[in-house]
């Protein structure tokens, strides 16, 4: 168990349950109302320009398809390093996120083009369903780390969570975290669309943080709804309160369904007004996305030259 978790729980199923069941509930109407109100913030001119660059630097540029090939992954890596070949002032993205077997391809190619500072994240633990034995999940993660992944995006066992086996979910995260050690950053995917209630989102957030997650992530991108603003709000509140409780800053990664600049800026506003601006860094906030990057680039062009360009002025991948 993590050292921090140790102070709050003794590791037993009953202490975990007592802690999680004692968290205040989330009122659905209130949480959705707050998220909707923050969605009305008007981010214009200079602050929009800053927000776009910040969002680009937070994108975990993702391809998670059965049809992924080394060629596709390499071209995504090139885009990650230089999102807009015509403007080198555009920052590089936060990370590349791929399946296990593409990690080495991505790492080698990034290293060969000067992208050493861009981490490669691997989805792990029988992503996206999480339905495999622990032995397989560990081996899956081990393999990703050995191939050069410095970030692991693991999924939790939603079946175990929903049947109330908090201890089992907790132990899985702990074991994966122990395996990651200092070598890889651990993002824990809650798959909030399957947890269904905001109360569950809050409990799962704490469960992951207590077990040692470095980041909590909303979704795999394979289930809808995914990173809705109220879900991200509830996770940010959990992170904020966990910091007050333990002094440790945990990151948040919304993923799935964030496709436009407007969506991304709404996420940044949620961060700014919930955890505060200290979380507005790729170290503590990432956005898992693929199509989003091109919309950010097109909005960036519009701000700098005053007109909208056709989609042919940004690269397809």
């Amino acid at each position, binding site marked *: 168990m993590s050292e921090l978790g140790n102070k709050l729980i003794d590791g037993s199923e009953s202490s975990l349950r007592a802690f999680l069941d004692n968290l205040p509930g989330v*009122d659905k109407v*209130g949480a959705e109302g707050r998220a909707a109100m923050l969605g009305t*913030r008007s*981010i214009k001119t200079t602050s929009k320009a800053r927000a776009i660059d910040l969002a680009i630097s937070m994108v975990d540029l993702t391809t998670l398809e059965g049809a992924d090939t080394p060629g596709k992954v390499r071209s995504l890596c090139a885009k990650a390093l230089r999102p807009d070949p015509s403007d080198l002032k555009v920052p590089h993205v936060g990370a590349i996120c791929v399946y296990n077997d593409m990690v080495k391809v991505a790492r080698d190619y990034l290293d060969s083009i000067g992208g050493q500072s861009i981490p490669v994240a691997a989805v792990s633990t029988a992503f996206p369903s999480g339905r495999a034995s622990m032995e397989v999940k560990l081996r899956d993660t081990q393999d990703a780390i050995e191939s050069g992944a410095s970030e692991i995006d693991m999924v939790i066992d939603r079946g175990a969570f929903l049947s109330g086996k908090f201890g089992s979910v907790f132990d899985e995260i702990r074991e994966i975290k122990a395996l990651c050690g200092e070598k890889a950053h651990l993002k824990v995917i809650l798959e909030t669309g399957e947890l269904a209630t905001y109360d569950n989102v809050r409990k799962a957030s704490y469960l992951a943080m207590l077990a040692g997650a470095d980041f909590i992530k909303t979704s795999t991108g394979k289930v809808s709804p995914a990173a809705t603003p109220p879900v991200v709000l509830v996770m940010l509140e959990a992170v904020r309160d966990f910091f007050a409780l333990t002094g440790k800053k945990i990151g948040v990664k919304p993923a799935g369904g964030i496709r436009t600049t407007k969506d991304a800026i709404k996420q940044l506003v949620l961060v700014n007004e919930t955890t505060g601006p200290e979380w*507005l860094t790729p170290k503590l906030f990432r956005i898992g996305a693929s199509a989003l990057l091109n919309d950010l680039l097109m909005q960036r062009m519009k701000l700098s030259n005053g007109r909208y360009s056709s989609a042919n002025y940004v690269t397809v991948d």
Partner: protein
Amino acid sequence: MSADIFEYAPAPESRAIVKLNSEYGLFINGKWVSPQSKKKFSSINPATEEVLAKVSQGNQADVDKAVKAARAAYNKVWSKTKPKERAKYLFRIARLLQERAREFAVLESLDNGKPIRETRDVDVPLSAAHFFYHAGWADKLEYAGYGDNPKPYGVVAQIIPWNFPLLMLAWKVAPALATGNTVVLKPAETTPLTALLFAEICQQAELPAGVVNIVTGDGATGAALVNHGDIDKVAFTGSTEVGKAIATSIADRGIPATLELGGKGANIVFDDAPIDEAVEGIINGIFFNQGHVCCAGSRLLLQESIVDDFLTKLQSRMAKIRVGDPLDKNTDLGAINSAAQLSKIKELSESGTKEGANIWSAPCSLPAKGFWYPPTIFTGVTQAHRIAREEIFGPVLSVLTFRTPQEAMEKANNTPYGLSAGIWTEKGSKILWAAQQLKAGVIWANTFNKFDPASPFGGYKESGWGREGGRHGLAAYIKGAK
């Protein structure tokens, strides 16, 4: 990353959409007329102290003219207009309000000082909703439960406050017209401009002349209206002090009145509340519309076991409230409506400090010109403090504590007022129990300041007589209905 990485750039709503005249007359019998008093006064923007327009001071003679116009319109036209035709006018007004929504929102922000976010998302849409709702009632009144031949009073005198100028107009005018009355309306002295723009809507909707008359002026104008011998009914929203004076004035004349007066609403947070949403609800309860809300949750009653954690969260949330230019779309808290109101807020706050409560204001910079007060809370408040008993009507929250649910109820009810209350708990049975104990006209559970035209609104005790909105609100304008 530095804290200014994501400062929001100013996002002001353009005021170009509002075309103000430099001077306004009175709106009587469908026409603009000069006041007999020959006097005008300025309506200013409380955020900048800029003069927006000169407005007429209506006197006794002007009021008399307006009442005569309303009487003639009632006798000759409105009482003979079929209910379904009345409904058409109301629908027309509602649609015009929607079409000109931005214009009304900007003007309301300018004249009142409230943020554009609220005028755009609350005041104006709700005003239109009240007209739509009552338009639906106009030809169905015999099904409202007030007999099979409900009759209007005739000429109704309506006096409205400055905190929701257009919305309070809608609350008054829509049911009065739907039930077949004609109206003489006196808007508040500091916020007459949206009512005058509403007069234009009446013209645009081709409402028959004299059905709605608008006489601007100060308290003397209001008194002249209430004391006029030919009115059939008084509807007033405002301070309890003026409400009592009106009640006295009509007592021996047999004229009925609805009065919506002050409040000192308790927002009660139990230890099993949804804490983050409760914090939001408390913020909304007291800082919505700068706390210029009669049903504001101006007393926070906190269960002692959660006091420290809750106040920490509340204060850090208060520090994020954006105070400033009301026309900026990102402003949460605008200007205090007038110099007089600001000095009242300051006086009561000083009494809180003097009587031993602890004051804390959110760190924020206030504009140099205009009338401003920061979001403020008092902790260590007891029932004996003035700030726990008197209505501050500003962004100032008094925090009290309780040990048991029963004690919370006693403290919440221990006030001369009884307008609103809020209950925060995840336990349904506790909500139902508390709602039965609380002597308040409006009780919200796990939310606050939610309004709908279908929901009756009004108070117990010194918070007023009668209800507005919903089926119950119709009774105020139907002869003999209770």
